[in-house]
């Protein structure tokens, strides 16, 4: 997993309001060379959450990014020293093994072979259930009998009319 992806990941456990950024616990970091493309970096820069990137790069052992977000002139300038650093941090550092930790709950998401496993347990999922009264159907989002016990935020759409 590259840091550009890390910058897009957040924890969405039920009830968590601020699941971003996930803290990185690095066990194995790999560097893979990627072609340098300033246009792509300029395009992505606007979408990057700077503080999260600096923190993430630091936990991966790369501390050369400036603490404060550089302004637009640095990004647009012909001098590529900054862009090269950004390029390395965003695209060339890979987290192979380790974990991502939710800042609010401390829940750990393992990263194996470069793939973060962000799957939630059943009791962590936000449930929105719609019961169709017309057909007398089962709630549409029930997956297993166990879910029925776990449902807490049940919402019934009362606009549906029983014939």
């Amino acid at each position: 997993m590259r840091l550009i992806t890390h910058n897009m990941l957040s924890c969405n456990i039920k009830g968590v309001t601020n699941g971003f950024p996930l803290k990185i616990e690095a066990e194995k970091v790999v560097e893979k060379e990627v072609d340098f493309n300033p246009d792509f970096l300029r395009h992505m820069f606007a979408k990057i959450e700077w503080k999260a990137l600096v923190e993430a790069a630091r936990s991966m052992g790369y501390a050369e990014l400036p603490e404060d977000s550089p302004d637009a002139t640095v990004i647009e300038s012909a001098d590529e020293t900054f862009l090269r650093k950004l390029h390395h941090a965003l695209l060339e550092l890979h987290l192979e093994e380790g974990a991502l930790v939710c800042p609010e709950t401390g829940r750990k998401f393992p990263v194996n072979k470069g793939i973060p496993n962000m799957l939630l347990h059943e009791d962590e999922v936000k449930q929105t259930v719609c019961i169709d009264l017309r057909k007398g159907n089962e709630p549409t989002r029930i997956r297993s009998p166990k879910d029925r016990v776990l449902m807490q935020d049940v919402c019934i759409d009362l606009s549906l009319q029983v014939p």
Partner: protein
Amino acid sequence: MGLKGPLHGLIILYNPTFFFFCTLSCFIPPSPSPSPPCSVKSTLLEVSQDYPKRRFTKSSILYAFNLQWTVMSEMTSRTADVMRVSSHCEVYEPCDDSFALVDALLADQTNLINHDPKVCMEIGCGSGYVITSLILLLKEKLPNVHYLATDTNQIAARVTNETLQAHGVSAEVVCTDIASCLEERLAGLVDVMVVNPPYVPTPEYEVGMEGIASAWAGGENGRSVIDRVLPVVDRLLSEKGWFYLVTLTSNYPSEICLGMRKRGYASRIVVQRSTEEENLIILKFWRDKDEESVDKETSSESFVKQFSRSLSSFMEKQWR
């Protein structure tokens, strides 16, 4: 991808680059390919029985074969190679639906390159065949695109990684339900979204079960997962975003298009294909604001389409 005789000529016809070759190869009946898949075998036999009547010399058949071979070898290098796709018993292997989706991307290749996407994403990547093909399609002209792939099956995520590595390309694979952990931060950033959802109509309880069932179980009308994916895609797509979706006729695709229309999307069918078991329809969606410009882009393509259609009907008549 299997050799599909006259069919594969038609597929390439959508792509203007091959236009010249195909018109040539289409006028000459296709020669039997080295290992045709069973379903194509019978048509090939019929065709080869026609050879004497049509008075084709041996050399012209050989020429056609060579032409087809060059077109095909170029084609296989542009999409993922099935032989190099990694597999696992709990992961859906590339099948007709995956091939149809890749053919749709191939048909739209020139438009995709002009579209100049920065971020491409596949939801439900399975074996990784589709995302790898997409990367190979764009790699030459657009070397710096960020690719993301998600799957709810952990083994599928791993298999996708292996497939990507076998083809010497890379994408970011995340194991998550649809795109739940990316929805917040990736919103409005994806320029091309590709989804081959679990679309098979099944009992509702089969939906979202672990392992390979998650690759096909689609609940009532096969729509349970599709209906959950659509709002997520709407959120993730950028202003100029394009969205390719695999559906069956039994999923009521017109209803899907109508639903997306309400969200402000225009749509069209890119590929329609009937296999032994299912009627596949590959839909493409884009935000309505750009409808004019997209129409312009696709007008040349629709001409090629119409031409290929008339050509194929003409060929059919000739062979009879």
